[in-house]
């Protein structure tokens, strides 16, 4: 059995990990920047509506209930994490019911979120 010094492999592993971390750190800001650009363009159209709603809400000073995530939002949150996006029109409503049961188990999704995603997919499946 080859006698490997524990220090040398540790140094090379450390070097490798650091270089990978550097690469990821370099890519991450690029990703953040490009994503934020896209978000800014989207928020420009929403800003006047938000300002108006802010003015309204300041008058009432009532705490609005926390916004529930919609089916589309939950779908984009959970259903792109592991695999490319699957379109609602790819399956029938009955098939989506079966697949969501499988995904709820596989991805350990909360029941209520799973039902909301299912409704979104069924409503948009068109069949």
């Amino acid at each position: 059995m080859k006698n490997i010094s524990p220090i040398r492999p540790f140094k090379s592993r450390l070097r490798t990990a650091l270089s990978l971390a550097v690469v990821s750190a370099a890519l991450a800001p690029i990703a953040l920047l490009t994503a934020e650009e896209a978000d800014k363009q989207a928020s420009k159209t929403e800003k006047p509506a938000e300002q108006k709603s802010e003015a309204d809400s300041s008058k009432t000073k009532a705490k609005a209930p926390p916004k529930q995530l919609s089916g589309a939002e939950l779908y984009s949150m959970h259903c792109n994490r592991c695999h490319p996006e699957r379109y609602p029109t790819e399956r029938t409503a009955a098939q989506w019911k079966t697949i969501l049961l499988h995904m709820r188990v596989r991805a350990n999704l909360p029941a209520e979120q799973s039902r909301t995603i299912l409704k979104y997919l069924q409503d948009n499946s068109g069949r």
Partner: protein
Amino acid sequence: MKTRSFALRCAAVGCALAVALPGRTAAAIDDQQFNELKDLVTKLSQKIDKQDQRIEQLEKTHGQDAQVHSQDQKTHEQDQQKIQELEQKLGETQKTISDVQQKAAMAVPAEPLPRVPLDEATVNHNFSILGDAEFQYAKTSGQHGTFLLADFAPIFLYRGGDKVLFEAGFDFILQNNAPGSSGRTTTVNLSFAQLDYLMNDYVTLAAGNLLLPLGTYSERSAGWLNKIPDDPLPRGLVPGSGVGAELRGAVPLGPAGKMLNYTVYGVNGPSSADGTGNASALDLGGNVGLRSDNAIANLHGNPSGGARVGLFMPFRPHYDVELGLSGQSGEWDDAGQHLWSAAVADASLHLGANFEVKGEYIHSWYGSDDLGEISPNGWWVQAGYKVAGLNLDLPLINNLEFVNRYDTMHDGLGTRTRRYTLGYIYYLSNTLLFEGDYEFFRSTDPTQRNRFVFQLSYGF
């Protein structure tokens, strides 16, 4: 008629004579008076003749009318008769039809109820096939390049109701027969087969040949889901599946999507290939409950137990981080003298729809008769960036994703392997991926050599 006219003539002559005869007694009539009388009689006779003729004609006409009337009467009677006959026939026909309908109703089964279109959303059972297939061209340094069917992995899903799902996955692999034998072998592996029962919103019971939640790779990254054609090196240190039962679920932490998910399970666990406690005999996936001598028994005295806890924190869609910690421990040798244990830390990060990083650190340790405590370990980290994030207006480029991975493994027996993988994915569609990568190996194992792989991967 003739009698009447004759009588009228006689009466006329008699009247004429009666007028003439008293004159004889009184005095004699002259010729002029006689001629006038004669003319008068003649005219009266003519008139009478004409009247007779008219009477004759009228009588004739009346006779003809009577005849026509009689014929009409006859025709009417005939028509009446015909109508009666037709009515009778109609009655008989209607009776016949009604008899036939009755007989038909008795002889022919009732028409099936009209089909009501199914409400697909509420169909209470459904069978679906998902899965993936991978086709490769690979060239390993020092070997010939080759095409191969890397994997065909169908997944069968059967939903029986709202709370029960049976799911099973297979791997079909082609392999050459041993040197000296021609032909090929088709290997079918049952990668998982489990019955899932949703007990309530927070607890699901699953039993069967389970995909084990040691890290997230087995459950969420294998096959088509993996962006690089082969598995990370340290995944070989832990079992991907095991026969047993588990409870799993998720608890939401607030309305923003944050959640805690958990899995607790018991499985037969790793075993010894030859029954001994020698390090080389460790078998991670062979203890399925039915022995080769048909005995139904665990190979060792006690099953293994394990669990995973994960925390998922989304900031907004496509921005999230997940951290998980999992482990398993139990006997592995037949005598029950040694434990096999593993601990896995997993993490994933998404920054937008175009960037992700994920990885695992895997550490296992087990006792052995010959080599004492052995501690294999390894880790891998993988990053991917979709060029679409650069917002370049180039359609072909926008379908490209660059992927790179670093993985390393130490088997605890002196063999270390490090690999750098640089690769890409070209998304021909959302389900058809054209992947390629080059793998740089640094290993004390001489069989591990650099290679490149092209893969066509289809998820269905």
